[in-house]
């Protein structure tokens, strides 16, 4: 035997020894890292396979090809073994992970940033604005502090008339007043614009009343439409549509005559109670919210008085219109079952966080 032959035999032996030993070594690796380390020991640049093949130069040239092929076969086997063991370890890890103790889902959720809470008055306000916007009304802004003329005079409140008792008013040192209703906005719109128009005016209003059921500051929303040929039937149409959008399809609307100096005829509006409706018959069964009447008193309305038109320079023979108004606090109380008005101005976090 030549030395070259010996070398070849030695390499063959080493290759077959490697081929036989690696599965056990891989099997002995319990972690991915250990497996990779083991793999690198065998196949790495300075690994065992490279060490074996270093001697290749001393093998007869004609035998080198065969050894090369054998080495490649071993390498392929090792690689396959590595991959298989790797998969096995991954699978084992996966199974272990899947079967480990479940997460404690009773720990509090980690909310990215807890959201805040809109005040119920604002929720109702934005909802009502949205309802009227979708019916074609736009918003007309106006000041909280206005003239007596806009708040009372042009609305047809006669001076020294008991009608003004209904609204005990705050006055400022400059002779203005804190508006006692959002009706000053109709005056502002009608005094500055030509009909037709359809506006809503949500806003803050003030009255000198402070007890369990009154707050000196509260909120109203007024809607008014002025055009040719506007009738009471149109007002009722808008009220019905409004009721349907606020409390659901088919909510009944009931009108009762009432008095507001700036409308004629004027009426109170009752909407069918949404809380005691029998879903089958649509009948209202009566509940605490509606005081067992099946109706909720929620707003006032009427046809704009010709005196108001005249005061604003609009010809009442050509134009007619309606106005309606409602209290946002009252609407919020009904909607959310808020038991008393004062809660809405105390800003108690335990209250606010409910909305």
């Amino acid at each position, binding site marked *: 035997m030549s030395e070259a032959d010996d070398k070849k035999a030695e390499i063959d032996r080493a290759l077959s020894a490697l081929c036989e030993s690696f599965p056990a070594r891989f099997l002995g690796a319990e972690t991915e890292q250990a497996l990779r380390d083991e793999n690198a020991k065998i196949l790495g640049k300075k690994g065992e396979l490279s060490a074996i093949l270093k001697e290749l130069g001393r093998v007869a040239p004609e035998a080198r090809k065969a050894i090369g092929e054998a080495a490649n076969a071993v390498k392929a086997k090792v690689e396959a073994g590595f991959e298989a063991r790797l998969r096995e370890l991954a699978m084992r890890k996966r199974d272990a992970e899947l079967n480990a103790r479940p997460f404690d889902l009773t720990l*509090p959720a980690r*909310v990215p*940033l807890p*959201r*805040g*809470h*809109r*005040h119920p*008055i*604002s929720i109702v306000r*934005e909802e009502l604005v949205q309802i009227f916007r979708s019916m*074609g009304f*736009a*918003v*007309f*802004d106006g*000041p909280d*502090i*206005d*003239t007596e003329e806009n708040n009372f005079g042009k609305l047809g409140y006669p001076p*020294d*008339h*008991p009608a003004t008792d209904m609204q005990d008013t*705050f006055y*400022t*040192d*400059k002779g203005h007043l804190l508006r006692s209703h959002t009706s000053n906005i109709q005056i502002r719109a009608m005094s500055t614009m030509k009909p037709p128009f359809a*506006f809503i005016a*949500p806003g*803050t209003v003030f009255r*000198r009343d402070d007890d369990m059921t009154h707050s*000196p*500051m509260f909120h109203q929303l007024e809607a008014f*439409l002025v*055009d040719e040929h506007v*009738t*009471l*039937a*149109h007002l*009722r*149409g*808008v009220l019905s549509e409004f009721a349907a959008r606020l409390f659901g399809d088919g909510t009944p609307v*009931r*009108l*009762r*005559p*009432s*008095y507001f100096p700036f409308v*004629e*005829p004027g*009426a109170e509006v009752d909407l069918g109670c949404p809380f005691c409706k029998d879903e089958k018959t649509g009948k209202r069964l009566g509940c605490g919210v509606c005081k067992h009447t099946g109706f909720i008193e929620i707003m006032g309305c009427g*046809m704009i008085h*010709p005196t108001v038109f005249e005061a604003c320079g609009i010809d009442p023979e050509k134009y007619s219109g309606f106005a309606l108004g409602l209290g946002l606090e009252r609407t919020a109380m009904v909607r959310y079952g808020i038991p008393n008005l004062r809660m809405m*101005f105390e*800003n*108690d*976090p*335990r209250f*606010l*966080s409910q909305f």
Partner: protein
Amino acid sequence: MLASYNWLKELCPGLTLSASEVADKLTGAGIEVEGQKPYGAPDECIVVKVVAMRPHPTKSGLRLVTVDTGAAQQEIVCGAPNVPEPGGLVVLAPLGTHLPAKNMTIGKRDIGGIPSEGMLCSDSELGLSEESDGIIILDQGKRGQRVTEVVPNDVIFEIGLTPNRPDGLGHIGLARELAALVGIHWKPPFVVETEGRDTIELLGVKVTIEDGVRCPIYAAAGAINVKIGPSPAWARYRLESLGVRAISNVVDVTNLVMLETGHPMHAFDYDHVQDAHIIVRRARETDAMKTLDGVTRELSEDDLLICDGRGPVALAGVMGGADSEIGDDTTRVLFECAYFDARGVRRTARRHGLHTESSHRFERGVDWDDHAYVLARAVDLTSRLSPGTKPLAGHIVVHGEPLSRKVIRLRHAKIRGLLGVDVPMAEALATLTRLGCVVTSSSAGNATEADVEAPSHRPDLLREVDLIEEVIRVRGIDTVPAELPAVRPTRDVGGREAAFSRVREAAVSLGLSEAVTFAFTTKESLTKLHAPAPSVTLKNPLSELQAVMRTSMLAGLIDAFGNARRHGERSARLFTVGNTYEARNNSSELREAADNLPVETARFAALLAGDAPAYLKKPRPVDVWDALGIAEEMVLRVTGTRADLRRDTSFAHLHPRGSAAIYVHDTLVGRVGPLHPDVLEAFDLGTDVMVVELDVMPLARAQAVRCVPLPRFPRNTRDIALVVSDDVPAGLVLSGVKKAAGDLCEEVSLFDRFTGDSIPKDHASLAFRVVYRSKDKTLTDAEVDAVHTRVISEVNAAYGAKLRA
């Protein structure tokens, strides 16, 4: 207004509706019945006859009364002073009777060793009157009879009248209304004719009206040989049932007539009317008078007085004077029925802080043409309530400025035009007629127009629309069909509502909760906050706590936080939106606003205190950077534009170390920072509080987002940690890095700040991430390295920033 169901039935003989049906009818027509309650004695009470009486053996003041119930005799312990002699009829509440008025049930009692099974009752114990002096003594009834058969049983309506319907303040007005609604007839009570007897001339009274505008009509009638005494039971019960105290027959007459007709009247003791002369005039400086309530009144020249030859005897339409009051010895009575100008009565009543049954009615406008009936009725009732009275026939009447009935043209086309409902003209005119209107001209049948005369009892009927309302009111306003109008589109005016809505949305998304805060506050709060001094002050605040209009939103938020702390809440994340108010003072502002209304500025404010939200670890207190975050994100979320925060120590209410001004596109829109320690102390807050204040409208006007094209080449990122002295703000280093990095630098961000360990004292390690990118090509590492090296040397030169080892 309280109204009696029985009385309405007397006035409307054809009425078959139950009390509840009447209530529904009236409410449906705008005369709102807010409640109804039964009036009468409890069912169990019976009439008993006094048989014997003896003093209580041990208790002085009590007596043992033996009564006959018809079925048996029993002894009752009674403390009343007025137990009648044997034979008298009284009321017994037997054992087990519930007396709602006293909220008690009669039980077996033992009084001073004597058992008592039942109670002899007074009017007030039975709920028949507010107060009473002793037990009821009946003038009719049989032993054992139910008391409800002897004393009246009624249903009392509580009516909430709108101020335009003074006619509803009397039963005749309500009866007229009810009759029109139901379609039946009503009739006034029968009045005894007084003709052919002694007349009012006998008294020789003279009436002078000096102010005919304030007193257009003054009429009077009289009665003599009157004997003052209590009214009979029916009259007393009627008054008491309607919440009016029965006083004496003549006073009761004026009250009964007022409750019947709605017209307040006054009764004078004619013998106290000096010089037999009634003068209606305005008050003079020298006048003074004591009103019935015992108050001496200082009079204003605007007060209208009823005077006699000596001086004032009544505040016209408001209250009588003490001097000419009906007394026990009055024998000659003069009744006044006048019409006073409503506004004048209201001014006088308000000036004197009086609100009487009389002023309430005159202020709303009484019937100005019913004096003949009113006076005749009063005289008639006097002779019934005071037997032996000699009624004087007729009345005298003196006129001031003439009043007339308004004639209103009603057009059929207008009814349809206003209501959207076709009401036949015949129906409209019939309705108006039933309400007391008189159709003065109309081509009968298919008339398209008519002239309608409004009655004197309906001062609210002034124009055509008022008549149309009557027509639909009686027909039923609820019968109007629903019809959707074609709404022609309109644009928003102002834009505040939309802006507030966006601000709320942003604030809530940032974890803030909304507080609704009052627009008024105290001057002190604003001073403590170094806010502008209030320039809009309330003339008539409810309390000093709400005396001025706010110039800062913070006062309300601090109150809200105070409330939260009282409930044990340590942390707060609150916001509020609303207006602040400042008077215009410079002349250009004044010129701009002809009405000189204050400037209202839409504002947002947020307050952070206590702990920042944390997840399962020890929370950290909120700090200025939380506030900066709110400020930046609010601006970004509302406008889509980045805010520019600039350190600014000029805000006196903010902590000088941490306050910044907030700019958007170089417009100052707000400020942010911790409250100044002095402010915390002034409000006794005891914890750090961060605030953010923003003007809403500039935010709403800020420009919206502009889209830029996406980059085409990859970025190349380098991190760099620099050790910098704490004297150098991080933002300055960041902008230095950015500047040094030049055009290739797309973005620089600070991602870590580290102190301690190997970092020298008063220094911090700031780690920046620099993103390099070219618009034209993919940058090579070498190109980026070159720039980055320059960056390091430049910030070192500029800020002494050293690369962290």
